[in-house]
């Protein structure tokens, strides 16, 4: 390898040397998500001279990202993050290859994409993608450098490395949808993803360089308010690993949103219901339930009788279902979707919410 002064300060470390730099140059790392965690990961891996770096992110840069997503400035606002990150990183280090994938990571593209890289770094911000990434790493046999944050605390671990545990061995079940708030809902101190992402970059470099003690099957936690850190060992659970392996057969058809309990049912607000045209409204409550929402002129079909009723309806008909509070109507929508109705949604909050707006309209 030719002498490159860019890497001089790390090459003079006897633990790295020119042979270490050659390993870095030959390495291929894919970073999932170019957000709070992804930015510092990408910045340090690029600066260190990882030969090939992939960045996948479908999202665009928003001004509220800038306090922590340090690769972007005002000039990147509105740009796709993978492309904006590539643009910035090519200036930081033009000697490496950076592949930007401005798209969503899905079960359709994950395994083939992962196969092109040596190490996968998880900088995503939701549970369904985290389980998808874990399973795709198991299927493609790639180590996973995990990082996650919550307010002032962060977690780092290396999974699926040298027969070690997987993310499922740590958290077998996804938490109930909506029970763990995200950074956008609850906030985050900008420097925290900087610290946790830098640790992910560090683990990635150690794996490539065979240096030090890797957090293989160790959950490292850090609290930036107390500056306390802890490490917990995670045993490998074969039954959990085999769940990921079992998903290999029909991986492309698995819906990780459904696995994580995230509803795909489209919802409309009560206010909007009164403004819609050419809609078939269906009230799936029992006949005695009040108040009636006569302004919408709905068909009255209790949930138990829905099946007989829908046999008579055109599947292209736009349908909005409601019940008392919005729970039975979701079940009705699921039933309609199962039977391939194309345009079905339900009213959030049901008749109780509708009644409020009906009364306002009458006044």
């Amino acid at each position, binding site marked *: 390898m030719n002498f490159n002064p860019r890497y001089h300060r790390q090459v003079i470390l006897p633990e790295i040397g020119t042979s270490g730099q050659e390993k870095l140059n030959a390495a291929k790392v894919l970073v999932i998500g170019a957000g*709070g965690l*992804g930015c510092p990961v990408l910045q340090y891996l690029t600066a260190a001279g990882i030969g090939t770096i992939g960045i996948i992110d479908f999202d665009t840069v928003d001004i509220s990202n800038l306090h922590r997503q340090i690769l972007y400035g005002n000039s990147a606002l509105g740009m796709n993050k993978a492309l904006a990150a590539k643009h910035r990183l090519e200036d930081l280090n033009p000697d490496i290859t950076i592949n930007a994938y401005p798209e969503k990571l899905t079960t359709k593209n994950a395994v083939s994409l992962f196969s092109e890289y040596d190490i996968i770094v998880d900088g995503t911000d939701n549970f369904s993608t985290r389980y998808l990434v874990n399973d795709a790493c198991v299927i493609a046999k790639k180590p996973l450098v995990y990082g*996650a*944050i*919550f307010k002032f605390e962060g977690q780092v671990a290396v999974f699926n490395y040298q027969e070690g545990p997987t993310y499922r061995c740590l*958290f077998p079940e996804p938490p*109930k949808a909506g029970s*763990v708030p*995200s950074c956008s809902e609850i906030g985050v101190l900008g420097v925290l993803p900087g610290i946790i992402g830098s640790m992910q970059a560090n683990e990635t470099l150690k794996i490539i360089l065979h240096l030090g003690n890797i957090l293989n099957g160790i959950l490292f936690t850090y609290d930036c308010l107390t500056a306390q850190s802890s490490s*917990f060992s995670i045993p490998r659970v074969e039954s959990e690993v085999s769940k990921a392996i079992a998903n290999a057969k029909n991986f492309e058809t698995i819906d990780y949103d459904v696995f994580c309990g995230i509803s795909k049912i489209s919802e409309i607000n009560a206010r909007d219901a009164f403004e819609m045209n050419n809609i078939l409204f269906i009230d799936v409550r029992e006949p005695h339930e009040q108040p009636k929402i006569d302004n919408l002129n709905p068909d009255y079909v209790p949930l138990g009788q829905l099946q007989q009723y829908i046999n008579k309806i055109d599947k292209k008909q736009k349908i909005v279902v409601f019940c008392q509070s919005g729970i039975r109507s979701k079940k009705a929508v699921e039933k309609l979707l199962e039977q391939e109705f194309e345009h079905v949604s339900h009213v959030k909050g049901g008749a109780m919410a509708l009644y409020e707006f009906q009364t306002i309209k009458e006044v």
Partner: protein
Amino acid sequence: MQLTIKYFGMLAEATSVNEEEVQTEVCSVSQLVKKLKHQHPKLSDKNFKIAVDQKLVDQNYMIDSKAEIALLPPFAGG
């Protein structure tokens, strides 16, 4: 015996403490969790894993001596 219980992430918010001491007889992890949920009802709908002396354990693990217990919730943020 005395156990030191450490709460992480949103669990510290749910219990309003980062750490507390709990007196208990020899018990399984699931029995301890039941006791903690009784003490802190807001833990009931939370998802977490338990570590005993820095090692993650399952629900059947028996806690039979003084130990440090950590309740670790999943984080999704990135």
